[in-house]
Each structure stands twice: as structure tokens, then as C-alpha cells.
């Protein structure tokens, strides 16, 4: 009998306890399923805090996709392709030359890079020609400096060639 009365009291108490959290405003209410993306280059802003669905970035720690309400993060970017899935499912792809991406707590993301162009702006022939050129320098007997630079160029070019295919 005693325990029954206790249960009834708990039943009565519960609705009030449930109501309280619902009135609280959370990040999810403020930014529903969208990331505000800013993709900026020193000479141009491709996106300026535009709401997008998903952003796939080539982070140095591995490729990752960022959705709304992602945990805050700072990632160094490899030279590689970034994919932005816009409203309605259409996706745009850019090749960035390396930089940083920061994800802030309230679904705000900014990507900074030195150079970035849509994939269709690249010429596969120019990439191929540069690869042979860079390979020659990388395997040649140049200074340590020249070899290192050629290796960086090769890394960028191979990544570019892979996404252009």
C-alpha cells in the first residue's frame, strides 16, 4: 500500500519534469540540419556563411564528412577535393591547395585555403605534363631543396589527377 502511493506520486511528478527541458532552446532549434559554411580564399569567398547540408573535407588526419551539429574541430587540410552538398542534394566539388578547416559549436564551419577551383576548371593535360616534369626533378640529382619541392608537387598533382578521373 505504501509503495503504491509512492508510485502514484512519481506519476504525478513526471509530466512537470518532462516539460522543463522542452522549453529550453538548444543548438538544434537554432540551426536545423544545416551547416553555415564559409569557404574563403585570400582573393575570393566562394561561400559566405551559406547553409549547406554536408561538407566533405580532405583532412590531414583522414577524409571526413561534416554534418550539422558536428563536434567542434580544427583540421589541417591536405591538397585535395572538398565536396559541398547543398540544399536539395546537388553537390559542388572544388580542389583546394591546402589550408585549414574549423568547425565551431553552433554548426558554423569555415574553410580557408590558398587556392581553390571547381574541378571543371582544371586541365588534365596540364596535370599530366607537370607530373612528368616533377618526376624528372624528384629523381634527378638536384639539391635537397629542389627534390623536396618536386615531391610536394608530385603529391598535389597525383591527388589532382585522381579526382579528375
Amino acid at each position, binding site marked *: 500500500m505504501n509503495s503504491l502511493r509512492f508510485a502514484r506520486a512519481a506519476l504525478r511528478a513526471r509530466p512537470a519534469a518532462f516539460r522543463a527541458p522542452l522549453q529550453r532552446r538548444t543548438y538544434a532549434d537554432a540551426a536545423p540540419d544545416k551547416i553555415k559554411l564559409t569557404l574563403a580564399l585570400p582573393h575570393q569567398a566562394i561561400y559566405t556563411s551559406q547553409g549547406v547540408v554536408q561538407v566533405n573535407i580532405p583532412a590531414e588526419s583522414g577524409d571526413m564528412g561534416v554534418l550539422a551539429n558536428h563536434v567542434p574541430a580544427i583540421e589541417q587540410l591536405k591538397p585535395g577535393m572538398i565536396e559541398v552538398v547543398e540544399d536539395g542534394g546537388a553537390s559542388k566539388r572544388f580542389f583546394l591547395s*591546402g589550408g585549414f578547416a574549423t568547425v565551431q559549436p553552433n554548426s558554423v564551419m569555415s574553410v580557408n585555403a590558398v587556392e581553390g*577551383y571547381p574541378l571543371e*576548371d*582544371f*586541365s588534365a593535360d596540364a596535370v599530366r605534363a607537370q607530373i612528368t616534369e616533377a618526376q624528372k626533378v624528384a629523381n634527378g640529382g638536384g639539391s635537397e*631543396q629542389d627534390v623536396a619541392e618536386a615531391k610536394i608537387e608530385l603529391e598535389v598533382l597525383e591527388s589532382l589527377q585522381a579526382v579528375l578521373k
Partner: protein
Amino acid sequence: MVFAWKSAGLSYNRYLAIASRVVRRSLKEDKRIIAERRGETDLRFAKWSNGKMGESKNLVDANTSGMASQAGSSSS
């Protein structure tokens, strides 16, 4: 994690500049000509000591020789 460019004595700035240069060169002809102008840097500097201007140097040349000496010390 040790980056390849770091062990070669390059700075991150230099690494980005090389990567960007390659990206610019890979563009289609019309875009490339506009973009490549951004890669040109032209800056000279001089160190002043005791109120006298020292030797005026090109920044790019000074950077290259500075990094070459760093590469030597880091590999030993």
C-alpha cells in the same frame, strides 16, 4: 606525425606556396593566366643596424638560402 616538407627544412608557408603554385599551373589556359599573377611576389628588404641600411636583399632569395641551411642542420 612528421611531415615530409618539415623534414626537408621547408616552412609550412613555403609548402602551401608550392602546392598553390602547382594548382594554379594545372588550370585551363584562360583561368591560369589570371591566377598565375597571384603567385608572383616581389619584396625586397634590408636590415638596419646602427642607423645604417644594410645590404638590400630579395625576400625569395633570402628565404631559399635560409631554408637550405635549416635543412642541413635538421638532417644531421
